[in-house]
């Protein structure tokens, strides 16, 4: 039953069209946030339906976890709009929400039967928080791209559409700092929960995913440290992009081929 998922995808696509339109038309947010909000509600309904049929948060399938990821990214977008009234971010962020929601509908959604290892609230929190952390890092990735674009526009004195619509570097930098901090904190808790839970279920737990999660924590920790130590600006933005490539690698390649405990198939 993917009808709700597809409706959400259509709403996000409409939001993206409006967001791009609002880049070129002065005044107002152009209705994109309203469509994203509608998309979020619809997708939430889809997630609830899936969760009911699975009997747990829908992360045990690759599709479910992607959908959850897209949903959390959408939530992050709405927070940015409400807090900063920034419309410049929308056209660049909504495509990610859209892409993950489409993957969420298209990718396999028949889970391997739940075992005792994939039940329980500890496990649920571990996975949900990990996905939330990845959404925060994805947001940081988009903000870093925007930072680099705006930085280039300002340096070259190009005062066109992007220059006018994108927020000031200071604002993008602050939004980026917030999302990395949240991502870092949430991922730390998720890793701690994961390790605790793994010890309970298995003995002698060692997984490639854990290694990559620790490297991810290290990279984003370094980023925040650099930000305070005189590297604020384009270098921090570049490191955030590197960090997110690592996250993507960890989310896809590591899950599918290296990890034994994080296979969503």
């Amino acid at each position: 039953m993917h009808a709700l998922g597809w409706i959400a995808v259509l709403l996000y696509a409409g939001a993206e069209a409006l967001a791009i339109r609002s880049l070129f038309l002065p005044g107002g947010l152009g209705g994109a946030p309203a469509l994203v909000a509608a998309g979020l509600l619809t997708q939430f309904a889809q997630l609830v339906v899936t969760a009911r049929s699975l009997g747990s948060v829908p992360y045990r399938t690759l599709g479910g976890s992607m959908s959850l990821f897209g949903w959390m990214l959408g939530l992050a977008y709405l927070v940015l709009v409400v807090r900063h009234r920034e419309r410049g971010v929308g056209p660049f962020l909504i495509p990610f929400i859209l892409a993950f929601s489409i993957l969420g509908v298209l990718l396999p959604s028949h889970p391997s039967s739940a075992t005792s290892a994939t039940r329980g609230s500890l496990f649920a929190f571990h996975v949900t928080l990990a996905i939330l952390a990845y959404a925060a890092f994805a947001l940081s990735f988009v903000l870093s791209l925007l930072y680099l674009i705006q930085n280039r526009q300002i340096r070259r004195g190009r005062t066109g559409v992007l220059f006018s619509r994108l927020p000031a570097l200071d604002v993008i930098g602050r939004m980026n700092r917030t999302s990395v901090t949240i991502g870092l904190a949430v991922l730390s808790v998720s890793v701690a929960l994961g390790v605790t839970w793994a010890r309970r279920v298995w003995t002698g737990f060692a997984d490639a995913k854990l290694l990559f999660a620790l490297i991810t924590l290290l990279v984003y920790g370094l980023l925040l440290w650099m930000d305070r130590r005189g590297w604020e600006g384009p270098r921090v933005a570049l490191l955030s992009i590197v960090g997110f490539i690592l996250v993507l690698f960890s989310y896809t390649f590591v899950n599918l081929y290296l990890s034994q405990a994080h296979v969503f198939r």
Partner: protein
Amino acid sequence: MNDGHEAQILVLGWNFRGASGPVRERIALTADEVRDGLRRLLGRGLVSESVIVSTCHRSEIYSIGQGEQVGDQLTRFISEWRGLDPALLESASFRRFGAEAARHLFRVASGLDSMALGESEVLGQVRQALSIARETGSTRAVLHRLFESAVRAGKRVRTETEIAVHPLSIPSIGVELATKVFGDLGERTLLLLGSGETGTLFARHALEAGVRNLRIANRTLAHAQDLAARVGARVVPWDSVARELPSADVVVGTTASPVPVVKRADVEAAMRQRRGRPMFFLDLAMPPDVDPEVKGVYNVFAYDLDGLEEVAAGNRRRRVREVPRAEEILEEELERFLGWFGNLSVIPTVTDLKRRLEQIRDGELERLPPGDRERLRPLAESIVAKLLHEPMRRMKNEPDAAKKLDRVEAIRHLFDLDRE
């Protein structure tokens, strides 16, 4: 206007395109002079309505008058009043009539006729011209509606296009770029080097842009103190500029120093102290106050006059690209105004009034039982015809064109004839 000796809109003006600076200066009017001029114009009976728009770039008299000779009479009036040669005034002036006069005002209000394309001040000046004319009692239905329509068109052009978005002046461009680095400049520190003419101009601009923490350094301390006292800034001794750099987010160079005042080594040291927080240099001096090498320091933004001029040229091109869209908006608003103005003639008003009364009559008849309806119809028709007769006769036979306009406008308003 359709009915023969009707009143028409006229504009007689002198602007920067046709009239030289000295001529414009002689004609330019203060608000009090505008009031005086309007009273004289109406007192002489030259026109029935008038509004004067007077700025440093233009003086334009919008009027409602009858006949072709009104323009000449107005020129003679200005020549006598301001003591200027009529031939010179005539050759430097322009005239537009009817729809062209209205279109001209719409272009003025939206900044399309301005020297700096899309500038915003002129909209306020047009609005003020209308308010002075209203106070003086020199506007009635037509010019009032014309100016309100022009102001609406001007507002729409500014909100629906980007014609006024990209700044053209060098200080505004500097402030815009700095704002895109730091966001709100209110919390930032701006260090101004030099307190001469450019420095003073920039200081005022920065304060208008919301800068609250302004510091001024000048080789001659007294000059810095003088400017600082006028704009509410803090003075920095000239030999402390390098020490002051770490706390400055924006540094603006406007001195006449033959060698750079800010050197790369100073900026590198400042950036270390600032822990990499960005710095912004705006060099408005020639020769430069800021060593061009400063541009290479990490997270430093630096612009010289040539760079800023390039940005200004780009912004000008962007404004020009918005002109067709602005003109579309003007034509929409113009069409709406001209539609209203065209209806101010007697014949369409008589037709509309007749239709309105007949609608009321038929509506009331419909409510009656069918038998009564047919029996009472001749009576109702006769009442409507009698009611219409006298107002129609009076409107048609009014010899004074201005009064005729007023009456037509009153009828249209009282019977709500412009409602569609």
